[in-house]
């Protein structure tokens, strides 16, 4: 699904965020991306989303070299990926329903289909009763779940998450992780970046550990 081949990313300042990074993630896999903050986790996810481009090396998604995508094609590529951030970036002037419906509107889904799909996504994250609520009135955990509903409402085959539990207490964090697990069980490839090693201990999943921009053995 995802393949990095000798990827190096050097910022204009000269700082190297990633160094000669190679790995592959199979379709349907669930993997954690760990490492201290600044180790390059976010940068790696940004490369997959085409928010950054590698200085050297290739990033392939589903066998396709992302370097071959021109600016016009980038939006259509992003539609195949769901993404969750530490800050869910909800739009506060829109209801929960409207926030979750946004990707469907952007992608031009038939309008008649939108309510059904939005409610299915809200149902999965357990917030069906909150569709009319304003995001500002929700708890942090609920906001993050709305963000997840928005990331999966269009049923992407690949889900990326960058510190999705960064603002949450351990109990809520475990809930969120369980949600990702659920999506993985129906075949979605999931890659979760987190620095919270204790949180992922119960999951016996693949772990990609980054240290100073390189893949490293995870500390025990």
């Amino acid at each position, binding site marked *: 699904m995802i393949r990095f081949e000798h990827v190096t990313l050097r910022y204009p300042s000269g700082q190297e965020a990633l160094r000669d990074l190679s790995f592959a993630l199979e379709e349907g896999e669930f993997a954690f991306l760990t490492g201290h903050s600044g180790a390059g986790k976010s940068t790696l996810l940004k490369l997959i*989303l085409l*928010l*950054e*481009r590698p200085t050297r090396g290739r990033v392939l998604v589903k066998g396709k070299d992302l370097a071959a995508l021109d*600016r*016009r094609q980038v*939006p*259509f*590529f*992003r*539609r195949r990926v769901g*993404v969750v951030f530490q800050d869910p*970036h909800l*739009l506060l002037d829109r209801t929960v329903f409207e926030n979750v419906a*946004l*990707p469907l*509107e*952007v*992608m*031009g889904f*038939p*309008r008649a289909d939108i309510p059904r799909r939005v409610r299915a996504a809200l149902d999965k994250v357990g917030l069906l009763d909150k569709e009319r609520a304003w995001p500002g009135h929700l708890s942090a955990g609920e906001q993050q779940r709305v963000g997840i509903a*928005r990331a999966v409402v*269009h049923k992407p085959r690949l889900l990326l998450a960058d510190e999705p539990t960064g603002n949450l207490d351990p109990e809520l964090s475990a809930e969120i992780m369980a949600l990702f697990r659920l999506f993985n069980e129906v075949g979605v490839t999931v890659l979760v970046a987190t620095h919270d090693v204790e949180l992922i201990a119960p999951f016996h999943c693949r772990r990609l550990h980054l240290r100073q921009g390189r893949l490293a053995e995870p500390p025990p």
Partner: protein
Amino acid sequence: MKRRPPGGARRTRARWVHRLQNELHDHRRNALSSLRRLAATPFQSALTVAVLAVALALPAALLVAVAELERIAGGLDLEGQITVFLRREVVPEAGRALAEQLAQRPQLAAARYVSSAEALAQFREHSGWGDLVELLDENPLPASIELVPARPLAEDLEALRGLAAELEARPEVDQVVLDVAWLERLAALATLVRRVGWGLGATLALGVLLVVGNTVRLAVESRREEIQVVMWVGGTDAYVRRPFLYTGLWLGGGAGLGAFFLVWLGFRLLRLAVAPAAEFYPALDQLGGPGAAACAALVGVGALLGLVGARLAVAAQLRTLRGP
């Protein structure tokens, strides 16, 4: 998932229609929400539209004024503005024959022979110097032919000038007087004012672009978060741009309408101001103002400038948001 059901053509067409419907819906939604956003800050929006309207109204007023001037001048009664003076040796019969011949010309409505005796009688009657004529031994006035152009002088000036030159070359003609100096001066003035109007228009159009651009830039700035999210979930540039293009369209179109109103009002006031003078110069009574075409042109130009200004501003902002 991508299996093609039977009847593919129909299905393709259905998808096409469906996409078009979606697109139209999206345009309507954006048009309305842009309008709502402008209405949410009524004072600010009205001020922007007013500034733009004044910028559009200034050149528009000049151009409408020139058009009115030319229209009124073109319609003035210009009979007797061309006189062909004949040589002394031309006998009245030959003069009359020439007049009849000239009356057949397509550029002329009529040609009237005026004998030297008639000319003297007219002079005596109209000039107020009649007594002076008594002192002369013989009639100093030549016979002439007065030409009446078929169309307003201003429209046919070149053809009439050609005719005058041609007549002047004839042996029986002494001189042709084509009294068009004032018309030429008017035309030169009209050209000058029109050039000033276009120059001012071009300068102020740039101002309109900048004002709309700045307004849209602020609008983009205030919705950065939303644009960011839209881009993450796969919004195309066109999708991101659309609401802001409508903002520019509304501002520009509204300004065009406002400018039309200002120019219309200006001409209304002008009419009131010249009303006393119209008693002596009836032509002033014909003074109109901007019409439906001017209204359509102002709204169209305003909307276009708004659209272009918005587009430039969003493009600049998108570059900073898009990343590499």
